[in-house]
């Protein structure tokens, strides 16, 4: 029994790692309908940039974090301005946008590979101590921080979307982009907002995961896929759904590994997606069109 609770706890943490990244991806996709596959690239770039600043350059945690956040936003916006917008002006279809996004992530991830080497690296400078115990279930300080910060981030995102004017504009755009433009929503500005916010959201998970388990060049692609799956399972445009879906996927993956080998974790995530596509294509919180 204890082992099941531990697995659920691990899954809970995993879910909260996916959640902010999924929200970022969801924001971008629901407002622009652009499949920003390179979202995972912002995630992995943030992780590696933080590593480079915090470890070899030995800057303070705060300074490294701030620089990384700014860089992430610049990168996200940059990809939009340099790749997506020009393509869209020329009338590119969503498929073309997806392809270009994949191209970006492959190209830049390989640059990272070239610069840092293919092996995993550790970020944490702290000593190794036993985690905190909650009735037989162990969680490290880092794991608890991941959950705490992710909850804060998701809460902040939700509040901003629900109660601010910009948030309303975002909701309008995700509901109906054409109508939103007609009633005066500046789609270009909202694009910039969601790309910035979405990219900023990945920094905290990237840094915390790096400190907890280390970074490796494969983290980018995997994270994009998880975020995309969470958004679709949760229901496009329903950010709370993306959070629920993230938690669900995280927990099912970890529980699933109890019965099958760890290499099937990605398969489990896709299995969930497939099940939803077949039985509930609008996602957890979506409505039938």
């Amino acid at each position, binding site marked *: 029994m204890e082992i099941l609770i531990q697995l659920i706890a691990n899954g809970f943490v*995993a879910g909260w790692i996916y959640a902010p990244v999924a929200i970022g991806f969801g924001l971008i996709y629901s407002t622009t309908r652009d499949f920003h596959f390179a979202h995972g690239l912002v995630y992995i770039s943030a992780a590696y940039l933080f590593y480079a600043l915090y470890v070899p350059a030995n800057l303070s945690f705060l300074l490294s974090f701030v620089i990384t956040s700014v860089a992430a936003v610049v990168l996200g916006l940059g990809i939009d301005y340099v790749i997506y917008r020009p393509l869209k002006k020329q009338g590119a279809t969503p498929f073309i946008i997806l392809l270009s996004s994949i191209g970006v992530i492959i190209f830049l991830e390989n640059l990272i590979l070239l610069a840092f080497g293919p092996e995993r690296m550790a970020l944490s400078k702290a000593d*190794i101590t036993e985690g905190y115990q909650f009735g037989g279930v162990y969680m490290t300080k880092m794991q608890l921080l991941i959950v705490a910060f992710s909850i804060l981030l998701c809460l902040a995102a939700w509040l901003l979307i629900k109660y601010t004017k910009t948030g309303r504009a975002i909701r309008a755009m995700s509901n109906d982009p054409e109508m939103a433009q007609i009633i005066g929503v500046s789609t270009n500005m909202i694009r910039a907002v969601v790309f910035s916010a979405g990219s900023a959201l990945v920094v905290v998970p990237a840094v915390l995961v790096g400190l907890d388990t280390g970074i490796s060049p494969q983290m980018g692609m995997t994270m994009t896929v998880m975020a995309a799956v969470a958004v679709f399972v949760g229901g496009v445009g329903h950010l709370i759904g993306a959070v629920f879906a993230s938690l669900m996927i995280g927990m099912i993956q970890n529980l699933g590994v109890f019965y099958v080998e760890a290499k099937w974790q990605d398969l489990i995530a896709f299995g969930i997606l497939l099940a939803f596509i077949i039985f509930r294509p609008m996602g957890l919180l979506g409505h039938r069109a």
Partner: protein
Amino acid sequence: MFGKTMRLASILVCAFFIAAAVYDLDASAQQVYKLGAVLPFTGSASFFGKNTRQGSDMAVGEVNAAGGINGVKLEVVYEDSKTEPKEAVTAMNKLVSIDKVPAVMTILTGVSRAIIPIGEKSKVVVMTSAMLPGITEGYKYAFRNATSYDNHVPAMVDFITADLKMKRLAIMMAQSEWADRALALYKSLFPKKGGEIVSVETFQEEAETDFRTQLTKIKASKPEALFVEGFKAVPVIIKQATEMGIKAQVLGSHTLESPDVLKIAKTAVEGAYYTKTAFDPNSPDKIMQDYQKKYKERYGETSEVYAATHYDQVKLLALAIKNKGYSGDAVREYLLTVKDFPGVSGVTTFLPNGDVNKIVDIWTIKDGKYNLYRLAK
């Protein structure tokens, strides 16, 4: 028109044959003797790539400083296997067809298994230091000059039951062929000594960073000892095991000597025991002392066993070329006659199946340092 075209064609054909003959003539006057090496310079086993190269470079330097092989210089052509059998195959094909080497040195089970058949087909000797038992069985051109799990596992089993007097063992290994074989050995030997394997978990070396799910299952099985084997993931696993409150005795193999292990696992790996090919850098033996002195002068560090193994391999292969000839068959013939070669990595005799029998010591990590705990029994 028949005449003109035919004349042109026959001139071209003649030119072709002349060129081929000249080229062949050139090749038979050997300018340099080449050996191949397919080593992991990148990838999770890059620790081994660096060290083996240092060992073989030093040996090549010594051979050439002593006048080369019958006056001809020796050169090793290095190719990066990237810890990937697929890449290794490309590298091997290049060494065989383009560099036309008579022998290739390598390490790692997956890589060795991929290139040994190529060597067999092309009559090129492959000398490996991989740990998979039986890796040379059935292949005329495959040789191994290192310990295998056939040596490590019995030594560890004996250590756990007789020295530590522990009965409950959990095993966490990277998914691979050698893991299957090592596991099979554990399963057959450990119960015989009165022990019980309480859980077995595997992981994907390259893809995973979070091993807590497997560790959760291991923790639930209440082991007294935990054996971890892989490459770069090992210190991360040990770190996470400690964070999860697993109190079992940590055990491993010489992968615990990789430089980042102490950096990543820090105090978590304190007190761990591991098996290591009998190789004492501090041995008063003259051969070892001379070797370590030269190695330290050249590289500024102490040589571990795999650098020494490849140092020996180059020396052995150079002797083979010198005494028998520059071809796979000649090298092979010579190697089978090698008996009690005073290698730095241990006295070496090749068995008829190309394998060797070397012994394994038990080492430990104390106060952040690697110490010999007990010599092989």
